[in-house]
């Protein structure tokens, strides 16, 4: 296993928060030097969950970056999934809760990052039980939410109605549970669930998934749950997924039912170095690459991927290469986000009530 420190300078700052962090995301900055992050907290002492916008000063006088809270929004239930839309000047946040509601928040970063709840869906029947994942479409007018109850809902928020309406795209009545979701295009998205299954949906073809990547492909070996999906805008035919037993795989829709396993279960080959044996909580394509042009990479090759795991690993994996370990913490890394504008910056949340900010250079 290669360690990042030896190859390129990596600065890591750990900032204790004294509160549990359920999710963390970068917000798209107003000016190039600004850094804002949205953090979903859970205060165990007072039992109160909240979302805060914090200004991240990456280069203050003191040696480590500082977080300055800008505004806070109190939630009635813990946040199960948090996403931000990047292309709007006033960034939108979509927050799903364990009690089955969805909140759209808008933050005005120019005027001190004031956060307002734009709209809320909490009707009975939206989801029964927790919303397990949510994703905002780029451009931020639509949001898809999935749950283990087997419901797939589409929430559109054009206009300023405070009560959102949602459309049920599918309801499996609990026969299939979904644990991850990601938009691929304005009409298509992918969901993930049990048994490492992935479903491909197209709003133009209603009534169910248009394509299914069969679960349980690692026959006989331990199966697992997909925790996170990512789709690269230039490679929409490929779904990247991370889940149980350190499994990171990609499903190329053109190649039918054969997964491309980057690490973990079901490989059975020694050539695939095992990065982690525990849950991979999040996967994202790593846009920070040493190669100048990703267009040069063959379209069948999987682009570099960043992952975080329960056993405290934050690493970058490239197909056929040794994984590059960025962090090896004594506790779990539950979520991370790569800054879109400046992909050298990574923020991640650690199990022991702290945040870590990484700067690659």
């Amino acid at each position, binding site marked *: 296993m290669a360690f990042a420190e030896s190859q390129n300078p990596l600065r890591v700052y750990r900032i204790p928060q*004294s*509160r549990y962090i359920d999710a963390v995301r970068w917000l798209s900055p107003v000016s190039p030097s600004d850094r804002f992050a949205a953090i979903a907290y859970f205060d165990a002492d007072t039992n109160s969950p909240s979302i805060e916008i914090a200004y991240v000063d990456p280069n203050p006088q003191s040696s480590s970056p500082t977080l300055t809270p800008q505004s806070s929004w109190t939630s009635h239930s813990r946040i199960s999934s948090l996403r931000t839309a990047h292309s709007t000047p006033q960034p939108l946040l979509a927050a799903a809760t364990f009690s089955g509601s969805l909140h759209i928040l808008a933050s005005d970063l120019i005027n001190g990052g004031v956060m307002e709840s734009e709209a809320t869906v909490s009707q009975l029947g939206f989801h029964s*039980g927790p919303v397990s994942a949510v994703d905002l479409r780029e451009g931020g007018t639509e949001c898809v939410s999935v749950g283990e109850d087997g419901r797939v809902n589409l929430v559109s928020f054009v206009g300023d109605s405070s009560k959102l309406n949602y459309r049920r795209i599918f309801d499996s009545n609990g*026969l299939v549970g979904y644990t991850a979701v990601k938009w691929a295009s304005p009409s298509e998205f992918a969901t993930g669930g049990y048994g490492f*299954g992935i*479903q491909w949906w197209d709003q133009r073809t209603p009534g169910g998934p248009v394509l299914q990547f069969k679960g349980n492909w690692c026959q006989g070996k331990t199966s697992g749950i997909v925790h996170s999906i990512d789709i690269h805008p230039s490679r929409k035919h490929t779904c990247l997924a991370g889940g149980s037993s350190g499994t990171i795989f990609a499903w190329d829709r053109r190649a039918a039912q054969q997964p491309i396993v980057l690490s973990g279960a079901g490989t059975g080959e020694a050539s695939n170095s095992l990065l982690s044996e525990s*849950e991979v909580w999040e996967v994202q394509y790593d846009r920070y690459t040493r190669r100048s042009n990703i267009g040069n990479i063959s379209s069948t090759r999987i682009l570099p991927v960043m992952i975080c795991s329960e*056993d405290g690993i934050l690493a970058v994996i490239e197909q056929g290469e040794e994984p590059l370990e960025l962090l090896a913490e004594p506790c779990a890394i539950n979520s991370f986000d790569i800054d879109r504008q400046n992909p050298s910056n990574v923020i991640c949340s650690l199990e022991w*009530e702290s945040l870590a900010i990484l700067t690659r250079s």
Partner: protein
Amino acid sequence: MNPSSTFANPLENPNAFRLHSLIYWQKEMPGVSSDSARGALVPLSPESPAAAVYPLRHGLKSPISRLSISWSRGNSLRVSVFAAPSSDGSVNDGDGGKVVEVKLGGGDGEISEAHWRRMAYGSVSPFALLQSRKNAVSSLSKMSMNSSPYDGDWWDYIMEYSKDINALLVNKKTASVPVLDDPKSVITKGEEPTSLKAAWELLEMFYAEKPSHSWLPERLVDWLADYDSLFSGTHPTVHSKLVDFQKELVNLQVVEDDPKYWEVMSSALAVGWLNIVVKMLRLHGSYRLDQLSNRETENGLVEAVAVLISKMPRMRLEHEAGKLGECYKAKPDFVKAWEKWRGQINKLDSSAFWFQCAHQQTREGLRSMLQIMLGNANSLCSATYNWIELYISHFLYMRPLTVGLESMYSLAQKSIQLKPMASAHRLMGLIIGILGENTEVVLAECLKGFGPWMVAHAIELLTAGSDHAEMLLHEERQNLGGISIEELHRLVYAQVLSSFPLTWQIAPIYLISCMKHGMVLLQILLSKQPVQDNQLLLKSIEICRLYELHSVTSNIMKIAGVHHWKHGRKGSGFFWLQQARDEYRLNRIALQLFDSVGKTISDESFKQWEGLIQLLGSDSKTAGGLEFLHKYRDFKKSLRQIHDGKATDSARQAVESLISLMKSPSMPQRFWLPLLYDSLKLLNWKERPLLNVSQTNLLLNKLQELSMARLRPDFIESELPPRALNSVRLALGTNLGRAILEE
């Protein structure tokens, strides 16, 4: 572990009932007898009041009918108060009940809950590292019998551990050092000291630093300089006098006229805060340029004392940069310098210049400072405010060569006699315990003053170099249920960690270091974790994987499976039962699933089933009794296509599926008839018989078996029209005839 008790309502005041304190209720641990007082886990202090009564506000208007008390997270009690239903049946606001959380004990005032958790998180890695090094050292020493396990790198390991833990105890960020040195600021405020850090540093200097006890007195001098302020709350201290004087200093025009100025300087000198004393001396009015000429002698005396103070010989390794005093490492050098220094003081004391000093306060103040430096017992006693300060002043000016814990202890006893204290600060108790070389007292003081975290981590230091302490703490004791004191305290700490939702995950680190009961308690801990949330569930399973607790894993998965199933998340429930390889429950839910498949597999619901059936896989081991669902789905699919009008090919496929279903051993008998009834269309296929002779015979045999089974009392009749059996029998008969003809 979750005691709940209910009380009837003998309460005279319905609005504020009294909760009799349960603070002294002991959390009982499995395997530890609690019937005798000796079995008590935490020693009860007899001087505590027997019962405390606290009113509890619950805000209920109507009288209380029932009360339920249970443990909540950590040290909190959850009290559920149920109101009596109102007699006239009307519904009022405030009816029903209230749940109140009662926190027992405010915890440690100087350390917040969040900081406490940060310490708990931070101490995991040093603790785990030390344990693994200990194991390595002990296995090494087993191999080579004669070498002592405690040499070489051992002390480095202990010191590294102690430093790592110590670094966690810093309460706040260090205050920024002012750029401009204020001449009138005599004490600088650094980081906020905490008793916990002070206690850890005491343990570190006495147990972890490679035993070179000749430096201990000087280490204690430094320690008091850092932590004297901690005693200010309960005792008068030099520090608090300094702080008071600092406030007055701003308004003082002529400091040397104020008797407090001299008093405070003598006190600071007595406890060895040389820099502060010299700085204060330089505030003396004789240094002012306009007065220098007519107070020349006076100024000379002040300066002479200041120089003597800054030249004080110290028996220590080195000083922090900028600290006054001269260090000597070797005893002979020190003794020589010491004698010379005292000679200079004596000479100054008996000089004639004092008669030329006109300022009375200066003359008396300086000469009393000289008495302190000469080690005058009365001067030291009156300059210090509590026994620790007196003790330190004795080290500095009377017995700088004190070596060995025994003589340090007797000196401490003497100091306490001279300055008895009404109430003991928790740090004072700890110091006495350490000096008295009584490991049990040290442990008890740690527990009483600083709680289970301190004890669990301090034991590592206590056992580091002392064979006696190691024997004492590692010996298995009958009255503790066969465990050692060390294990007991680790278990107690793990128990505390387990009771908080954010820290339970680090309890396993401590539990597995407990040889006797650790593993069992770990299994109990993991089995008790909630299964509702996948993320938490997977975190528990990960811990099971690390410690190879496979049976616990499968139990947790079974619980999760049933939970999800009951809440209608059939896919999730099915997945977890499948992961647990729980064939019994899979078979049970298969029956339920089959019922709903029969009812709901229609055109529009097919996609719902598709995902679940794919999850089943075709491997019979992981599918439990559900593999037939796969075939049943195929059968239904083909049947449906016949309805759609697709002809014989689909019908043939349907027959294939039917036969393999009927052959399948996992296919429950009660579904045979419904299945055959569904297939009537195939049996009566118009164009030609679809089933050959042997196939038809198989089905007829099954039908016969079914008729026999119907006579048994436990047979479950399917919800079909009463003529169903006959029509199937007739169709099969007809088909048999046609098939024979065809062949």
